[in-house]
């Protein structure tokens, strides 16, 4: 089992009060693997169903964002490698 990695980048170093702030989190883990399971049902006569696919992640990661000023960060998007959060300055 490998340890996860993460970087955090803000879109600015200085904000004016009320500015929209964007935090980009890039993360990963060598163990994390997306897996797709495809199921096809076949009857005795050899008729097959259409394939049905389900996806799962092995060793999924959870991302937590905290801010020591109490600012609330809201997740806008997350594709499993890059997550984008927003807050108001």
């Amino acid at each position: 089992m490998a340890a996860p990695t993460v970087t955090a980048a803000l879109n600015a170093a200085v904000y004016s009060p009320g500015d929209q702030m964007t935090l980009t989190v890039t993360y990963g883990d060598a163990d994390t693997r997306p897996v797709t399971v495809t199921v096809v049902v076949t009857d005795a006569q050899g008729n097959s169903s259409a394939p049905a696919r389900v996806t799962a992640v092995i060793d999924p990661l959870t991302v937590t964002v905290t801010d020591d000023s109490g600012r609330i960060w809201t997740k806008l998007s997350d594709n499993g490698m890059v997550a984008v959060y927003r807050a108001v300055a």
Partner: protein
Amino acid sequence: MPRVTVTVRDNGGRTATATADYTIAPPVLGGYYLAGNADPTADMAGGNIRSLTQYRSFADGYVFPGWNRPWLVDLGKAGVKINMVLELKHYGAPNTDAQTFTVDGVRYTVPAPAMTIQQRPGTTWPRAYGYSQVLAGQCDGLFARALSQYRTMGFGVNIQLASELDTDHEFGTTEAGKAYTWAESDARAVQAVTYVVNWFKARGLPAGTTFSVGLGGFDRACYQRTHPEALMAKLDFLQWNVYATDPTHTALARFRRTKDWAVADLGPVALSRPVLIAEWGVRAAEIPDQAAWIRTVPAAIATLNAERGPRIVRTNYFNSGWGTLSPKATGLAALKAAYATRPYV
């Protein structure tokens, strides 16, 4: 400095952490100037106006706070940030002769100003103390007099040397019979400004004293010539002035113009300095609805400050000349409404 912490945890409980620090800048200071260096206290009342520009000539015997201007001390002590534009330009009254005076027991004689500036054809060219005169130490008495008065004020100010060097030099200058081109005048001014800043910094200054050099900001090459890194290392602000004089002028475009040149042309020391807009105004002749234009300023400043490059931290409306608010009540109400809006709050 606030810090955001990101933690990633896998199923096995292994974690990784990253942090990012940021700063929330204080609100931009909305500011003002009233024609004739007049008492702006009544106009400023109730308007979140926390910054002020003043103009003085070093030739004047009363630079700080200025003749009959006790209100400047009151405003400064009340926390209004004051930008004192101190000029080598002689305002012309009562005469331009040599001066002899005593400062803190030291007798000084300062010769008559030997330079002409603002040499626009067909106009009377104003006199100014020459850059060679400054470098020769002939104007030290003027600086000593201003400093002695400044020390009695009880608070620090920004000292902006010159109002607009580009306006002063646009048509060349002449000192002691020798003519200098615009570019030559800029180079000489950089030397003289460096001398003056060094002169002040070598002496005890009130806490919070800062320095800048004055430019209209309408000429890109001049702006670059007058902002070498060696000088900017001694200065605390970038500065330029902003006027809307055409119906097509937007607030964003007008405030942006000099910033874009600065970002493209200046070095890292210059770009590390915040921006003080010593004057901004809307000329009623071309833009009769001044209030509508003023309403668009807060969003323009917010947009510029969200971009890379130096941040605008003070904007002082110039209620005089090109910026005269007419009708005054309408314009002033718009100004106060703008200064009650982000990023001014």
